């Protein structure tokens, strides 16, 4: 059986320097449509750096230079002329540490649509409800939407951040170790959420938890010291790694 795979994003020869230090060395890999792609590797290998390139978040870091192409919707978004705002509307991000705004739950979700021009309150209410439902948070907070988001638990805050990322209907969702600050039960809820989200969205997740990658993703990329060592179907990476470095990491010879 052959799956007709669409490439949502394509990373071509991406290299990144923090000042003089090279953190990404010639990375090339595809991001397939409506699949979960996991990026794994030991600490400091460049996973988060690579992820942040996909929505140009590294722009805000001082003295950061990025070479190479990131093809999205047929255009290279890693150029000076690219519209970063449009890119970020289509490529959303969820961070390692939940970062809800110090506003009400409603305002957190309505923030992005408001910025991008939606002013109609009824429409905003609808968006808030849909996003909270998609993030499996509606049941828990629907009666206190005007309370501060800072009063939610860690797991709830992270789901709120996911709902917030969904509020502008992106096509790709980037997740930078979304569960590392959460307890196992909250983690399980988010992993379930990811498997449901991937039916509508493309997901790229960075994780240092190998088991999580194996559970949740369709494709896995293994990185080491800034280089992409191996990329392939998750099943193949974990059961039959081609590269020795990959095998060493998977089997826990080092981590």
């Amino acid at each position, binding site marked *: 059986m052959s799956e007709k795979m669409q490439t949502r994003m394509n990373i071509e020869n991406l290299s990144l320097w923090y000042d003089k230090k090279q953190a990404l060395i010639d990375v090339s890999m595809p991001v397939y449509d409506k699949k979960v792609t996991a990026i794994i590797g030991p600490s400091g290998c460049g996973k988060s750096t690579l992820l942040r390139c996909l929505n140009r978040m590294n722009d805000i870091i001082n003295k950061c230079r990025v070479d190479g192409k990131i093809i999205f919707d047929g255009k290279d978004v890693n150029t000076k002329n690219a519209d970063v705002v449009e890119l970020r509307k289509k490529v959303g991000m969820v961070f390692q540490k939940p970062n809800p705004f110090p506003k009400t739950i409603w305002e957190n979700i309505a923030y*992005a649509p408001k910025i991008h021009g939606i002013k109609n309150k009824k429409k905003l209410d609808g968006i808030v409800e849909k996003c909270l439902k998609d993030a499996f948070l509606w049941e828990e907070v629907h009666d206190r939407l005007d309370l501060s988001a800072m009063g939610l638990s860690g797991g709830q805050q992270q789901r709120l951040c996911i709902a917030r990322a969904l509020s502008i209907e992106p096509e790709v969702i980037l997740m930078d170790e979304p569960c590392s600050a959460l307890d196992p039960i909250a983690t399980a809820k988010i992993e379930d959420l990811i498997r449901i989200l991937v039916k509508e969205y493309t997901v790229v997740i960075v994780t240092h938890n190998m088991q999580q990658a194996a559970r949740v993703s369709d494709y896995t990329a293994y990185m080491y010291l800034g280089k992409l060592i191996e990329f392939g179907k998750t099943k193949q990476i974990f059961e039959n790694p081609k590269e020795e470095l990959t095998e060493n990491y998977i089997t826990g010879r080092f981590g």
Partner: protein
Amino acid sequence: MGVTFHSFIDWDHLRSFLTLKRFPLLFTFILSCLYAMIGFTCLATIAVLDQIVYFMLFLLGFISFFSTGILTCTINKKKSIRILVFAGILLLISFLTFVIPISINLSDIGFSASLSNQLILQVFLIAFGISGGILAISAMYNFSPIGSEKGAYLLIILCMLAVIYPLVIILFQVIVNGAPGITWEFLTEDVRDIGAEGGIFPAIVGTMVLMIIIIFVAIPLGVGAGIYLEEYAGEHIFVRMIKTSVSILRGVPSIVFGLFGLAFFAPIFGLSFLTGGLALSCYALPMIIRTSSESLKGIPNGLREGSYALGASKWQTIRRVILPPALPGIITGIVLGIGEAIGETAVIMFFATLSIRMPPNLFDSIASLPTHLYTLFVFRSYGTPEEVAQRTQNIWSTALVLLIIVLALNVIGLIIREKYRKEF
């Protein structure tokens, strides 16, 4: 303070000192506190106590510490010897109170002042009160580590009291001396006879005018600069120079700002409210810039990233996500800056008068409460004894009015801050 104080005073432990054998330790501690309080109050109010009083106090201290030392002999020999030595020193000083001359002339070593024995004895009271208190606490806890910790607590609380106490004394004196003079006529009448008669209405109006100028000039410039320095400026060395300059400016003496105003603003606006207001705004700016920067710095970076990731621009992020939680801090800075500025004399005293036209014209000479106070003080001994007395009364009353205005400003700032804090 509620929690700290509660754990500082261990009521159950204290009850164990109400036995005859242990009572001297508690008494020693209370006596030490008394020493510090009496010494401080006398020092602050320049009170004169009879030599006999000092003698009795120090003698009592000797007896108290001596018995403490004897009682703690069995617990720790070294430490109790320290207490006995302390007691001995107190005995020595009690005799010295009769030996120290009433006034020591310092001209032998080159000063034209003389040192009063009151000053020396009061300083002794404070010093021995504090050190004795720490020793006493240590003894009360059998010289254990808990005792040292309580001793440290005591020191910290003393520092806090040392700051509050003089403030309370000053407030007390201003209120008690100034209140009798606050009449409706005082607040609404014009100045007459260089302040010997009439009221301070021009000064009040003048202070308000200056405050309005500062609000319109210093707040936008200061908060704007703070936002720029924190959010927009990069890591360039030029930026660091600006930040350092702002810090240094905060330490520049206010009279220099006055001269600056004379040199730069006076040629354009004359010796007027505009010049004074602009000079005062410059004085308030470093404080406002600094507190705005610090407030913005305190907002976690995760919020900025979260906003950018949703496609927001820098200004949208600042306006909607960063500024609201930073507002309490920024407002505090503004209130503090304005409060400092309107109490300032040196910046505007070169061109301040007592009386101004009504309604005030921005190009007129300035009247303000602090300069009014200063002028009255300079001229206080002119005229008949009644005029002098009235002027003295007016000096205190002017000070009280100024104090009330600054306090009101701070209270308003507090209310605004709390209102914003509640929303988050």
